[in-house]
């Protein structure tokens, strides 16, 4: 029997499959389609202090083997998340939850993480300093080592839960940012968020997306994600959650061989809502084919 369990900073996961923030809401839509307790965990919709509509529509565009979104952190705000979404989730989901937190100032990140620290079912905080779709805050905190370190230290001061900093690929040196987060106390690194992208409607001669640019995700970005996970694995000694275009069990193995301890699945959930169950079903068989007895044995294997 293949062991596909894994661990993130002491949090045990039955399998490494985690739906990525922003592609899974607060779980309700998917729980209608399948029992979401088969997941390792999931990272809920990026939450800010105040409710947000997000950016103007249209905010979705198609790409070859991927998509662009400029949703812009639409969410019900932390009060509604704590008072409505999490209690509803508690009734149906009995696995560890990853709280994805966003903000527009260091104080806002701190405020939200402090509130989430009191939520028992939340076992990991994933702090998004990489949203490309908001003009202030968001990615601005994830593009310099100093700003990334400042947010990391601030949220670490208000929580005893493991803090995973979610990094942007839209930087010159991903390792410098990751190293700065680790030095500031981060317990782990999540990467990659979306790549800043754009499409133009050639009939209208105008950007497809109202906000002009957005975050590019999907299978097209998978090689970039694998490369960055590989680089960061070499640079830090804390666990990595790998993501970016993961769509199959084969992708999960590749991401873990690059250095990920667990893997998030994003855009693929939107195209095929049954992607995660399919991966979880396939993973043990694929491990057998590859003669892997214990999945955690392959973390970072590609580094030789």
């Amino acid at each position, binding site marked *: 029997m293949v062991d596909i369990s894994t661990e993130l900073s002491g949090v045990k996961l039955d399998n490494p499959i985690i739906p990525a923030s*922003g*592609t*899974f*809401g607060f779980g309700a*839509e*998917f*729980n*209608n*389609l*399948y*029992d979401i307790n*088969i997941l390792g965990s999931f990272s809920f*919709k990026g939450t800010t202090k105040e*409710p947000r*509509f*997000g950016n103007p*529509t*249209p*905010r*979705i*565009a*198609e*790409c*070859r*083997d*991927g*998509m662009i*979104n400029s*949703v812009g952190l*639409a969410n019900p705000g932390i009060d509604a998340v704590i008072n409505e979404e999490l209690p509803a989730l508690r009734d149906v989901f009995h696995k560890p939850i990853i709280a994805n937190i966003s903000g527009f100032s260091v104080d806002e990140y701190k405020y939200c993480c402090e509130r989430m620290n009191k939520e028992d079912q939340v076992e990991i905080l994933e702090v998004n300093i990489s949203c490309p779709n908001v003009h202030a805050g968001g990615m601005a905190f994830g593009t310099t080592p100093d700003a990334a370190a400042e947010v990391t230290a601030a949220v670490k001061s208000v929580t005893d839960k493991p803090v995973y900093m979610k990094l942007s690929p839209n930087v010159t040196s991903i390792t410098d940012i990751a190293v700065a987060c680790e030095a500031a106390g981060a317990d782990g690194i999540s990467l990659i968020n979306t790549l800043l992208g754009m499409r133009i409607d050639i009939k209208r001669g105008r950007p*497809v997306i109202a906000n002009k640019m957005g975050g590019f995700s*999907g*299978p097209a970005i998978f090689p970039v994600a694998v490369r960055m996970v590989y680089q960061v694995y070499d640079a830090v000694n804390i666990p990595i959650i790998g993501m970016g275009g993961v769509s199959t069990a084969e992708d999960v193995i590749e991401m873990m061989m690059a250095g990920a301890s667990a893997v998030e699945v994003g855009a693929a*959930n*939107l*195209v*095929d*809502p*049954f992607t995660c*169950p*399919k991966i979880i*079903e396939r993973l043990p068989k694929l491990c057998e084919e590859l003669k892997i007895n214990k999945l955690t044995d392959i973390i970072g294997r590609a580094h030789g």
Partner: protein
Amino acid sequence: MEEYIRKQIDQELTIISNEKIANDVYRMSLNGDTSLITAPGQFINIKVPGFYLRRPISISDYDDEGVTIIYKVVGNGTDALCRMRPGDTLMCLMGLGNGFDVNACGDHTLLVGGGVGTPPIYGLAKALLALGKRVTVVLGFGSQGDVFYEDEFKDLSKILSGKDLDVRVATVDGSYGTKGFVTDCLKGLDDVTDYCACGPIPMLKALYGYYDGKILGQLSFEERMGCGFGACVGCSLNTKSGFKKVCKDGPIFWSQDVIF
């Protein structure tokens, strides 16, 4: 995998026919399990081979055997769709969206379709006529070559109620029917109790303005979607009762809830 699956919304449908019915407009009939469709005005989200995101297309008609969709070729995805042949299969997320509330319709419902907003209005007309309700249909198109389904609405009424149906057509350039917009075709319809409409937002807004909030409308909205089932929040609409997802809370919204 069966044991974790609660609702298998991703169904394989087989194309029975795929034919052009107006300028750039095609009608496709598909065979397969339709048990998840619950109301006219719902849509299916189609995985077109070779394209990443699915294409949300409203259901024009359905029965126990399959669905009919009518779509316009507007880009590469719908262009590929129009080239598919009978016997080809498509994976489709089925029964998405809320659909029209036929029970909320009054004694004389005005049904309005604008361009490729017409297809779900056909399914709604069928449902209302089958319930013995009175409807009047107004369709708006750009030009004569864009017009479709005028006769199909009339035939539907003859079959279901034995009566002639008042179907009015407007074209923007006046090449067919009344010159102008759907709101130029509403004379003599003073006993209309409510309206249901699908079409471009300026048309929905004009209808809302015409009735000035005096009667209720059910309005079908369109938006670029990521998933089609409420997960990605790509297709949000700000309404008087808060932020709504066009794909899941809609695509049908009550007129008094819409912010124009």
